[in-house]
Each structure stands twice: as C-alpha cells, then as structure tokens.
C-alpha cells in the first residue's frame, strides 16, 4: 500500500513538472503567456491611471503586486534550463521579464 502511495506521489510530481530540472517547451510557452499578460496589464493600469479612474493607494498597491509577479518570473526564468532549440527564446523571455520588472519599478517611483 505504502509503495503504491510513493509511486502515485512520484507520478503526480512528474506530471506537475516539478521533478524536472529543464523547462519544457510547453512550460516556456506558459511563462511567455504570463509575461505577455503582465505586460498587457501594465498597459491597462497606465490607461486607467491616465484618466484618473483609480485611487493613488490602489495604484501604488497594485503596481507593487505587479512588480512582485514580474520579479518572480525573472527569477524563475533565470534558473530555468531550456530544452534544445529553446535557448534563444528563453534568453529573450528573461530579458523581457527584466524590462517588465523595471517598468513596474518606474511606475512605483512615479506614484511615490
């Protein structure tokens, strides 16, 4: 019984991708989508700020959460090892994530 539980746990871990040290093509695609989503959200945030549709406190708080999310992505991509053929895409994604984090930091400074 215990052996079955261990096998099930390993299968679950394998399926979730956490047992693997390289970032699969699908995972990289998922990180890229997350990056594009954060980038688009930065645009939306700037849009509503421009027409004063958000309070300053909300803007500051939300910008900080966005910066944290970008920072987590930067770290994740920095540690990721790509599959053959994905190295250039991974490095581009990392550079974009760094730029995005800087964009949020600039946004936070503007809101100080």
């Amino acid at each position, binding site marked *: 019984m215990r052996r079955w539980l261990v096998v099930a746990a390993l299968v679950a871990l394998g399926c*979730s*991708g956490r047992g693997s040290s390289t970032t699969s093509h699908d995972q990289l695609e998922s990180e890229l989508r*997350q990056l594009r*989503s954060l980038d688009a959200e930065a645009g*939306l945030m700037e849009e509503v700020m421009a027409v004063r549709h958000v309070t300053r406190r909300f803007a500051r*708080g939300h910008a900080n959460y*966005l910066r944290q*999310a970008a920072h987590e992505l930067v770290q994740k991509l920095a540690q990721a090892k790509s599959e053959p053929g994905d190295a250039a895409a991974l490095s581009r994604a990392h550079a974009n994530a760094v730029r995005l984090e800087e964009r949020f930091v600039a946004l936070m400074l503007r809101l100080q």
Partner: protein
Amino acid sequence: MKKIVQLTLGIMTALGGFVDLGQIVFTMQAGARFGYALLWSIVLGGIAIILYMEMCGRVAAVAQQPVFAVVRTKLGRRLGIATLIGSNLLNLLTCGAELGAVAIVLRLLFGVPERLALVGGALLLGALVWVLNFQWIERTFGLAGLTMIVFAVAAWKFPPDWGAAASGLVPRFPGHATKDLLLYAYFAVGIFSAMLMEYEVHFYSSGAIEEGWTAKDLPENSIVSTSGIVLGSLLTCALLILGSLVFLPRSIFPDMLSTTALPVAVPLGATALRLALVGILACVASAAVETALSGGYNVCQFFGFKWDKNLPPKQVPVFTTTWVAMLLVALALAMTGIKPLTLVNFSIVFGMLIMPLTYYPILKAAGDRELMGEHVTAKAQQRLGWVFFGIIVIAALAAFPLMILTHSGQP
C-alpha cells in the same frame, strides 16, 4: 420587515460562501480565457446549491438537525469523523486564504502594510464575531457585501454582447486542442465546486437553528436560499462577463486579487473602484467568518456539545474555543507567506474531493420520511437531487487529475 432581515442569512451565506476569493479570481480567469463559454457552469452550480441549501434548511427547521448531526447519523462514526476532519481542514485552508485576501484589500484601500493588515484584520474580525450576536453578524456582512453589485453595474455599462452571453449557457467545447479541453474542464469543475463549498451549507443550516426556524418557517427557507443564491449567481456571472470584456481582448490572465477590481474602474471610475474593494472585502471577510464559525459548529454538532453564537462564550466553551482556534491557526497559516490564491486553489480542489460526503447525508436526510414526516422531499426534487449528486461525484473524481494536468489552471 422581519422577513426582509431574514434574507440577510441567504445573502451572507451566498456572498461569503461562493462569491469569495476563489470564486472572484477563478471566474474572472474563466472569462479571460474562454469568454462567455463557461456561464453554464455558474447556472448549473446555482441550481445545485439552491436545491441542497433548501434541503439542509428544511432538515434544520423540521428535524432541528444541522448538517453535521445528519452526517453522524447517516454516514456512521468512522466515515463521519473522516468527513469532519476533511471539512475542518478545508475550513482552515479557506479561512487562511480569505484572511490573506482581507489583508490585500485593506492594503489597497488604506495603504496599510500587508502584515499589519493581516494581523489587524484577523483580530478585528475575531472581535466582531465575539461581540456581535448571530443576527448582527449576518446583517453586517450580508449588507456590506451588497456593494458587490457595482460589478454587475460595470458589466451592464460596457455592455456585453447578450446574444453571445446567452450562447454561453449551453456547454460547448472550445476548439480541439487537448490542453484547451483540459483547461475548460478544470475551470468548469472549479466554478461548480466553488459554488458548492461545504461551509455554505454548514453555516446556513446552523444559522437556521440559531434563528430558531421551525416548520412554520419553511416558506422563508425557500425564499431565503433561492434569493441569496440567485443574487450570488448573478454577481458571479457579472464577474465572468467582466473578465471576458476587459481581459480577454487584451490577453490578460488575472491571477492577482487586485487585478480583479480593475474592470470596475475602466467604465465607472475611482469611486466605483472603492465600492468594488469594499464589496470584495465584505465577501472575503464574510468567508473567513463563515469558515471559522463552521469549524466550531461542525465539531459541536458532531460530538453533541452545546453550541449557540447567541449565548455568552462561557456557556458554550467548546464552540468558542474551536472557532477562535480556527481563526488563530488560519492566521498563522496566512502569516507563513503562502499566497492566498495558492491556498484557495488547493481548497477548491480539496473541497471537491470531500463534497460527496457532505451532500449525500443531506440528500438522504431530507428524503427520509421518518425524519421529515410530511415535509419530506418531493419525488421530482429528490430525483433532481440524485442527478446533481451524480454530477458532484463525477466532478470530485475529475478535480485532482485536472489540477495536476493543467498545473492548477495555468494557460
């Protein structure tokens, strides 16, 4: 007037019960990913919870038995204890997540540092529950939650494509890619599960007994359960519609609580944004209170200890100690720094796994002529109850594999 005030039990149960952190973010994500295509899962979950909430209110009013007394008699001691442990673990996870969400909203509203907001928010909620009697708890949180209506106003203002929204009421698979199908199924199961979270029925049936319902109150039970759920379902639909109108065209996948308030700001501005934040605060605080109190109710009802929120804490020591302990342990969980959304993702899937063990005893008890006499469930309603129980079992079996295969719904 008394009847209008009674509605607040249904409103608080629905708003804190399923328009909570998980549902708010989950539904907006579903709209952002699949447009209106998952509206049907809200309708399905709404019908299921109306059906079961009416049953457990009826059992409470007629047999004076809350959910966990029914669980003990219908499942037996061993399975009953397993259900009790599972339900209270679920309450703990959910309470921790909701407290984390309270802190986030307090920060967005008042600029308070998050840790301070977390501790302060939890202590304030604890003090409110300690001081207020049951009726005032439900009125305070139920009525404050009504500010969530601003989400419906924002959705109306855009306005949505009503024809496309209507077509979302019929299940349709999006595309043929396996990943899309799995994600679609994950969100359908997640929305359905979040609408049927167990603590809603624990809280509702305990509330019915706290309010002293008897067989005479059965018409009120039908009105209160239906109106609260219809309101909650409409607000949930508004969240999904906003996700589809604001996030889908921009390819934004909202996975932060703060992002979910933005769609209100787009058409309505800063005042509406404040109202939206107050509404979210009321819902997540209400969910934290419901889960903490449900923990106390469950233990006392299962083991036969005295429980009553309207009695002084000293007269109900086990009940008081349990809900206070639930709140404190949940606070400790939130203080570890685990993201509220990570906790709530697990709680939705875990909730689905143990859901059949909560809804089976209710279905059996409400259909038991010996227990319910003339108020036994009508045959057609009982059949419908079994159909929904079948759907609950299927969703329970699918929940965990779907969570693994979709990496908790990551697009």
